[in-house]
C-alpha cells in the first residue's frame, strides 16, 4: 500500500515536471508539434510524414501562391498522425487549403506507425481531438493474434495512460536535449542536403523489395482508411479545400492495390489527387537524398506543385 501510494505521488510529480518541460520547450520536435497543433494559422498547411517535411518548400510555395504556408509534416509519422493533426488544427483555425501528402503504400498496416503515435500522448488530457487516434495505439488491428491481446482483450493503452509519466515515455532525453539545442524552422520545411548515388538507389530498391517480401504487414489498415476519409470529411465540414498529393519517389509502385484505393477515395469525394510518383521530370538522381527529395529536388518539385495548385485554385476559387 505504501509503495502504491508513493508510486502514485511520484508518478504525478514526474508527470507535472515533464508536462512543464514539454510545453515550455521553444525548439525541437516537441515545440513544432505543439505549434502545429495549437498555434499554426497559415492559409495553407501541409500534413504528412517526413516526405511532407522534406519535400515541400513552403516559403517558395507561399511566395508563388501569395498565401502563408506552414509545413506540419512530421518525421516518422503517417496518415494516422495527419488525421490527429487535422482535427487539432481545425479546432482552432480554418486554413484555406490543406495538403495531405501520402506515400504510395500509405494505407498498409504498419506496426511502427502506431508505436510512433506516442507523440500524441502529452496532449491526451488537455485535447479531446487527439484521443480517438491515441487510443488506436491500444486497439491496433494486428494485435488480435498476440498472446498479450488475448490476455488483455481491452484497450490496454487507456490503462497505461492512467500513468502521467507514461505519457512522456521515451521523451525525457529529447526534452533535456531541447534545452540546449535550438533547431527551429519558421516554415516547418527542413530540406535534406545530400544526393543519392546510383549504387545507393539500387541498394535502396533491393532492400525495399526484400523487406516488402518478408513483411507480414501487407494488409490494408482500416484505421488509415478511416483517417483519410476523416481528414476529407472534417475539411469538407469546415469548408476547407483539400488536395491529396504523392510527391516523387525513387521508384513508382502504382500497380499496388492501396494506390488505387487512395485514388478511388479521392474520386468519390471529388478531391483532387496529384500524383508525382511516376513523373518523368524527377527521373534524375540529382533531386533525391534517399527516398526523399533533397533541397534541389524539393525546390524544383515545390515550383511545379505550386503552379499546379495555382491552376486548381483558379478553377476552384
Amino acid at each position, binding site marked *: 500500500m505504501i509503495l502504491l501510494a508513493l508510486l502514485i505521488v511520484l508518478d504525478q510529480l514526474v508527470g507535472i515536471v515533464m508536462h512543464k518541460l514539454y510545453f515550455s520547450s521553444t525548439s525541437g520536435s516537441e515545440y513544432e508539434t505543439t505549434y502545429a497543433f495549437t498555434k499554426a494559422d497559415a492559409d495553407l498547411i501541409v500534413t504528412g510524414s517526413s516526405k511532407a517535411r522534406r519535400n515541400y518548400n513552403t516559403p517558395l510555395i507561399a511566395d508563388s501562391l501569395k498565401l502563408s504556408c506552414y509545413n506540419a509534416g512530421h518525421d516518422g509519422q503517417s496518415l494516422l498522425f495527419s488525421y490527429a493533426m487535422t482535427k487539432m488544427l481545425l479546432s482552432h483555425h480554418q486554413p484555406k487549403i490543406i495538403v495531405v501528402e501520402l506515400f504510395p503504400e500509405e494505407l498498409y498496416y504498419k*506496426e511502427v506507425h*502506431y508505436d510512433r503515435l506516442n507523440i500524441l500522448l502529452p496532449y491526451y488530457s488537455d485535447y479531446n481531438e487527439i484521443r480517438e487516434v491515441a487510443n488506436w495505439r491500444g486497439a491496433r488491428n494486428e494485435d488480435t493474434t498476440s498472446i498479450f491481446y488475448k490476455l488483455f482483450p481491452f484497450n490496454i493503452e487507456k490503462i497505461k495512460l492512467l500513468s502521467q509519466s507514461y505519457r512522456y515515455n*521515451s521523451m525525457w532525453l529529447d526534452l533535456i536535449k531541447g534545452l540546449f539545442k535550438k533547431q527551429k524552422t519558421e516554415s516547418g520545411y527542413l530540406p535534406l542536403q545530400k544526393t543519392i548515388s546510383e549504387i545507393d538507389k539500387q*541498394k535502396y530498391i533491393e532492400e525495399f523489395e526484400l523487406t516488402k517480401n518478408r513483411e507480414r504487414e501487407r494488409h490494408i489498415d482500416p484505421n488509415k482508411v478511416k483517417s483519410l476519409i476523416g481528414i476529407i470529411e472534417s475539411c469538407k465540414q469546415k469548408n476547407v479545400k483539400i488536395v491529396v498529393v504523392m510527391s516523387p519517389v525513387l521508384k513508382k509502385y502504382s500497380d499496388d492495390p492501396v494506390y488505387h484505393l487512395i485514388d478511388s477515395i479521392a474520386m468519390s469525394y471529388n478531391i483532387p489527387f496529384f500524383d508525382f510518383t511516376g513523373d518523368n521530370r524527377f527521373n534524375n538522381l540529382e533531386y533525391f537524398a534517399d527516398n526523399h527529395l533533397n533541397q534541389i529536388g524539393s525546390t524544383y518539385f515545390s515550383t511545379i506543385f505550386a503552379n499546379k495548385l495555382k491552376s486548381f485554385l483558379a478553377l476552384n476559387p
Partner: protein
Amino acid sequence: MLLVASCVFYMFFIPSYILILLFTIVIDYFAGIWIENAKGKRRKLFLIISIIANIGVLSVFKYYNFFAENIEGIAELLGWHPNIPFLNMILPIGLSFHTFQAMSYTIEVYRGNQKSERNILIYALYVMFYPQLVAGPIERPQNLLHQFKEDHTFDYTRIVAGLKLMLWGLFKKVVIADRCGAYVSNVFDYPYQHEGETITFWCGLFFFAWQLYCDFSGYSDMAIGAAQVMGIKLMTNFKRPYLSKSIGEIWQRWHISLTSWFMDYVFRPLGGYRKGRDRGAINLLIVYFLSGLWHGAAWTFIICFFLFGAQLVFRLYFKKQINWLFSKLESPNSKRWNNILHTAIAFIMICIPFAFFRAHSLPDALFILKSLFNFGTGGLSIGNSSTFIYAVIGVIILYSVEIYQEYYSKSDALPEPKSTGFKFVFYSSVIIYILLTGVFDASQFIYFQF
C-alpha cells in the same frame, strides 16, 4: 487451480493446440508408469516410445517444412523435381521448451532418479506450469514435481523477493532489450544500407547480444519470480554470462536449463570427454549442432551454434597457445585488468556467431560477418541518437547491477538501500524509470518462437 490457469494461458494462443500438449502429456504419463513397472528391455521400449512421440510432434510442427525444403533443394540440384507438400501451420508456442521438459521426465524415470507420477493432473501441471510453459526454464522432475504436492503458505519475504525479481526482469526486457532491439533492427534489417560502416556492425552485434540476453533472462526472471510468488522454486537459468572469463564459462552461465539438459541427456551419454579429446570434440559439435536445431529450423541457427561449438573445440585443442597469448596481454600487477581483458574477449568471441542468429538469411549473415572485419573503412551510424543513448544507459545499468552482484554482494540480490523508507522510494523510482524509458509497443519475447 494452477493447472486450469495454465490451460487457459496456453489456450490464449491457439486453443486447439492444447490437444497436441495433451497428446504428449498422456503418452509420457503412461510411459512413466510403464517404465517404472516394466523390467529389462521393455523399460527401454517404453522410453523410446515416449521419446519418439515427443520428437515426432516437434519434428512435424517445427522441422517438417525445413527438411522438406532442403530435400527439395537437393533434389532440384540433382535434376529431380519432386513436389513435396509444405505444411501451413503456426508453430505451437514454447513447443521446444515443454517437449524437452516432458522428455526429461521419462528419461529420469528410466534412470531411476524419479518415481513415476501417478496423479495425471500433477504430471500435466509439471509440463504446463504457466510461468515457464512458453520459454522455460526447462525444469527437471526431481526439482519441480514434488513442489506441486507441498502446501505453500503465505510468506511475505518470499513474495516480495519474487516481485522484485519480476520487476528486474521487466526492466531488462522493456528498458534494455527492446531499446537495444530498435538499434539492432536498424542494422540487421537493412544491412546493405550500412555497407562500409564497420563500427555500426560491431555496435549492432553487441547490442544484439545484450538484447538477446536481457530479453531471454528478463523473461526467465519474470517466470522464476512469478513462480516464487506462488511458492514454487524454479531453477536459475542465467548467471551473469557476460561477466564470464572464457567462452566455456559463458555456456555454464547461459540458458543453464537447456545447456545442462544437453549435457545430461546427450553429451554424457555419448561419452562426454571420457573417450578422449577427439571423441569429446565430436560430442561437443553434436551437442551444439542439436542446440542450433533446437533454436530454430533454419541454417542460420544451426551455423550459429555450430560456430559456438567450434570455438569450444578450438579451445580444447589450443588451450596452451591461448593461455600463452593471454599471458602476453595480462598484467602481473592488476587482477582487475586481467578480469576485464578475459571478460571482454569472451564477450566478443561469443558475439561473432550471433550474426547468424539475428540475420534474416545466410547471404545477409555472411555480408555482416565480412563487414565486421572490413577494418579499412570504419564509420558509425547511430540512427536515432536518443534510442542509442537510452540503450547505452540501459546497458550501463545492467553491468552496474551485475558487477555489484558478481563481485560485491556475491549474491543474486538486487542492489537496494538498507532502510525500508528508501527501499520504497527506490522501487517506486525504478517503476517510474520503466514507465519513462521502457519500450511498451509491439515487443514479443524472442524466445517465445522456440
